[in-house]
């Protein structure tokens, strides 16, 4: 009896494009994105070590690049990604240990991750400016 088939569209489960971004979902994907970004910096770490092992010329090329404005932007981006992933990772470890699952705690730890990773990034750059000049 084809006539009895409902014509109206049935509800579908909402997907990512429909959801309004929330702190929880944004931090969740941020942890993954910063992890992938830091993978590229891990490659840079090896390039840096290999350049150092290659001798003074390899090192000075790498050093000059790091001191250039594009290098400084990349190091700054790496610093923020690192602290974001570090704080987000510690938040995950606390969850893995079984703590902090009620909604208040989830939002408190979420804001703590945002504030702490930003503060640590700023602190690291102030320290670097004081140290290096």
């Amino acid at each position, binding site marked *: 009896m084809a006539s009895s088939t409902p014509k109206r569209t049935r509800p579908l489960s909402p997907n990512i494009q429909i959801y309004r971004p929330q702190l929880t979902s944004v931090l969740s994907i941020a942890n993954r994105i910063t992890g992938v970004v830091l993978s590229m910096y891990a490659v840079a770490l090896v390039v840096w070590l290999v350049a150092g092992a290659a001798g003074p010329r390899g090192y000075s090329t790498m050093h000059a690049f790091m001191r250039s404005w594009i290098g400084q932007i990349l190091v700054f981006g790496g610093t923020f990604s*690192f602290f974001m992933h570090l704080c987000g990772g510690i938040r995950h470890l606390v969850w893995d240990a079984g703590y902090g699952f009620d909604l208040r705690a989830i939002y408190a730890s979420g804001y703590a991750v945002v504030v702490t990773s930003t503060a640590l990034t700023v602190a690291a750059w102030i320290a670097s400016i004081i140290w290096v000049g």
Partner: protein
Amino acid sequence: MRSPLGRAVGLGSAKDGVERWWLERVTAIALVPLTVWFAASIIVHMDSDYLTFIAWIRTPIATILMVLLVAGLFYHMGLGLQVVIEDYVHSGMKIPALLGMRFGCVALAVAGILATLRIALGD
């Protein structure tokens, strides 16, 4: 003709998921002090010349921590990128992508550790 039990046996998960999940956490905990040490060292050595940099890597504590950092980092990175690839790559490229990623992680870890040891133990 196979019984439902016969079909089920040998199918399903690879049974080593918990081990991977656990090792991702173990390496994460190890990387907390190692990466914080590295970040602090980068701040100090951002503007160091070649000889200062070499002298720093040659100190026993820096050599040991750098080797541990590179090993832990690429192990953790391999586990993390594996999950990312498995979540988003569903085509026939999934297995080649996983293999390429894992080979890359091992190659980079070996290169990083050998470079550190070459600086530390070289003349």
